[in-house]
């Protein structure tokens, strides 16, 4: 049992603030909450919305249609009212006369009566939504008291008053949603976005320098790291461009601290030479790449999974890398930690591919561990005067020392000897290229197995990666409840791939469908090339919007 609330209006009108109050209060009421943001690349005007999906069991994605629409403008109402489910309610902020199926309440008026301005209009609207859902206003008031606790009793009292006034104004209309999930079923109150979960993972893993040139949707993680930088002793530096951002990280990890940079496709394009540098110098470079539709500037505030093959092939020359792709907020945290550890263990660049949908999507989950628990940097002592940074080894991994001790650490972007000095010797070149490529074995040794969900030996297996985890999982549940036998195989490590392990999951499925957010089916193509699948169907989406279970089920049934 779940419903979808949508709050829509112009940029700068309070769509986000109202969304935050409501999603927080609903999570505090013991509901499972999953939120998503849809916004335009502008600071004022346009049409933005926040979706808040609430349910009596765990939620993994968004829905297409709306059960309760809160429109802050007439335009938002006009554009979105067709998406209302039968029996759904539209609530308009304003003074327009009510029409059929429409409830109009003047939140600014309520706010002005209480505090003299429309500062509390959002709180009043939240009260009205609670009334339309039939929830107890006390839990909203308790939540408001908590979040405004530092602002003093007067602010708390007025907000509670505004919430109650909004609640009463809606309750007087005697309209309620008929089927609403019961609260008190989820004990996790804290909502966290994919962006913040990745940031927390990085901070606890021991990142000491975070650099970026701001670019949506990577910026959300950069913001998070800045906010916690004093707590975790992180230097957060806004670089003059992405080239500087990646080269600062290369310098910092050379000198011994874990460091990262985050960006989106266009910024990552500028980082490619730095990525290649990390391949040559064997530096533990970690890049968070949050995808959005491209080419070029594309759709800056929308979502996509278009950069998989780019991330896989970025950087001139041949070198190893690992690519992770989280599917949930929990995985954003876990895989960020793992990515930083892997980069250090194998002395190779590691990329985490996420996207706007997951970066912005919030969910109330079991609290993530915020304790500082740094990953192993896999360093050797730097006290040996005869140290060779690139000593040849069987697994390709040379003991890594950092500057400051008797061991001089020499790193070169040219081909180099074991000592790190530049060389044009052909036999040196062959030995070094073999050594660097041998690290693929170390990357595969700790391959993150794909996650299987659903019916064993299913008629339909949906293969997905990254943020399509949730929508695919819900699609599988839906298909199984409708009499199909379906399963999902979700990849959170998309490179390198262990063929044997992957094939074990797929051998008996009759219909394999790869689901991904791009035009060409990039992951499907990689799976074919790696001989993991041969015959398959493809469900793609490239309009800039996230997948939903309904979208996938409709495509499967076609």
């Amino acid at each position, binding site marked *: 049992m779940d419903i979808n609330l949508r709050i829509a209006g112009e940029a700068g009108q309070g769509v986000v603030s109202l969304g935050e109050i409501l999603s927080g209060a609903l999570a505090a009421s013991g509901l499972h909450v999953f939120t998503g943001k849809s916004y335009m690349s502008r600071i004022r005007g346009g049409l933005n919305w926040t979706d808040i999906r609430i349910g009596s069991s765990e939620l993994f994605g968004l829905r297409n249609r709306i059960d309760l629409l809160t429109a802050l403008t007439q335009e938002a109402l006009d554009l979105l009212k067709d998406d209302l489910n039968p029996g759904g309610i539209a609530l308009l902020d304003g003074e327009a006369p009510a029409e059929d199926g429409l409830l109009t309440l003047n939140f600014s008026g309520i706010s002005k009566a209480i505090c003299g301005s429309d500062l509390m209009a959002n709180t009043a609207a939240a009260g009205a939504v609670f009334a339309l859902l039939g929830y107890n206003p006390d839990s909203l008031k308790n939540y408001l008291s908590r979040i405004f606790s530092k602002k003093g009793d007067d602010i708390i009292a007025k907000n509670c008053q505004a919430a109650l006034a909004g609640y009463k104004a809606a309750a007087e209309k005697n309209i309620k949603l008929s089927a609403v999930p019961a609260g008190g079923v989820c004990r996790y109150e804290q909502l966290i976005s994919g962006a913040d979960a990745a940031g927390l993972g990085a901070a606890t893993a021991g990142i000491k320098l975070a650099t970026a040139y701001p670019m949506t949707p990577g910026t959300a993680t950069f913001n998070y790291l800045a906010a916690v930088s004093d707590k975790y002793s*992180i230097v957060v530096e806004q670089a*003059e461009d992405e080239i500087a951002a990646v080269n*600062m990280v290369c*310098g910092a990890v050379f*000198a011994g601290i874990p460091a990262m940079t985050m960006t989106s496709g266009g910024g990552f394009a500028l980082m490619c030479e730095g990525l290649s540098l990390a391949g040559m110098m064997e530096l533990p470079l970690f890049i968070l790449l949050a995808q959005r539709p491209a080419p070029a500037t594309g759709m800056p505030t929308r979502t996509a999974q278009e950069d998989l093959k780019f991330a896989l092939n970025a950087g001139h020359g041949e070198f190893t890398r690992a690519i992770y792709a989280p599917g949930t907020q929990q995985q954003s945290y876990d895989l960020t930690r793992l990515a930083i550890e892997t980069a250090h263990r194998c002395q190779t660049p590691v990329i985490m591919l996420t996207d706007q949908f997951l970066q912005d999507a919030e969910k109330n989950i079991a609290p993530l561990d915020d304790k500082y628990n740094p990953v192993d*940097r896999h360093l050797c002592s730097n006290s040996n005067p005869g140290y060779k940074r690139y000593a040849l080894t069987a697994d390709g991994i040379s003991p890594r020392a950092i*500057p400051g001790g008797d061991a001089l650490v*020499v790193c070169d972007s040219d081909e180099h000897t074991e000592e790190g000095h530049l*060389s*044009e010797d052909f036999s040196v070149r062959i030995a070094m290229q073999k050594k660097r490529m041998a690290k693929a074995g170390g990357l595969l040794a700790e391959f993150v197995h794909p996650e299987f969900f659903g019916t064993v030996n299913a008629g339909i297996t949906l293969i997905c990666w990254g943020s399509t985890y949730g929508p695919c999982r819900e699609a599988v549940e839906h298909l199984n409840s409708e009499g199909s036998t379906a399963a999902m195989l979700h990849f959170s490590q998309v490179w390198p791939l262990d063929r044997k392990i992957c094939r074990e999951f797929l051998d008996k499925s009759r219909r394999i469908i790869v689901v991904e957010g791009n035009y060409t089916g990039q992951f499907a193509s990689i799976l074919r090339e790696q001989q993991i699948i041969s015959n398959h169907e493809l469900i793609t989406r490239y309009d800039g919007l996230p997948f939903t279970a309904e979208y996938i089920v409709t495509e499967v049934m076609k």
Partner: protein
Amino acid sequence: MKNIAVADKQPAWCPGCGNYPILKTLDEALNELNIDRRKLVLVSGIGQAAKLPHYTKANVFNGLHGRALPAATGIKIANHELEVVVTSGDGDIYGEGGNHFIHTLRRNVGLKLFVHNNQVYGLTKGQASPTSDLGFVTKIQIHGVILQPFNPMALAIAEDCSWVARSFSGTPEHLKAMMKEALNHRDGMALLDILQPCFSFNHQNTFKWYRERVRPVDPSHDPFDREAALRLAMKFGDEIPVGVIYRSKRKSFESQLEALKDSTLVSRCN
């Protein structure tokens, strides 16, 4: 297949190249100041000058073309107790890395930047560099350079770099004095632009050409006087001032970072 490892150990520079005295002078300056090579990191980009770190004893980060400064900044953030010296050419620092040059000056990172400025591209064989004189004819600029020459001194003063000086590879004693003063400089960035002839590709700005033009800055010049410094920085022609041109009391980047207040970041990674 011929093993050419021996050739790798010899400097890749032409006989008579200004890089030789720069290398020798740098070694002398480091030795005379008793700088611990274990705590020294030489950072460079790409170009003939950028090969210098391979021919002496230090920790080395020989990175990408134009990207020495952001890498050096990252090193300084990780461990601000390391002595970080960037040695690279005019093409690398002023051309390919121009944006980083501007913003590293703005940050005032506590690194020493020694730019080997021969006003020409050596490694790619003779094209114009950002500092090439107007009218300088090359295989590419066949009618002569028409772009305004880049003025690193004036730009550094405009961005309030904390120590700005110029020297000439043909006057090793002056060069050594400047390098030592730069190495002793604390609290912020030290930029030393080193004029250097290129015998193979620059037949206009020759050893003789520089020697006839360089003039030590008058002892009465107050480097903390920004306007006077800017007037000196604008001189490049019949007379080229060498010496400390500008100083400022600006704080260094790393001294203002919250996270570095107590100790180096690298010492707090466990």
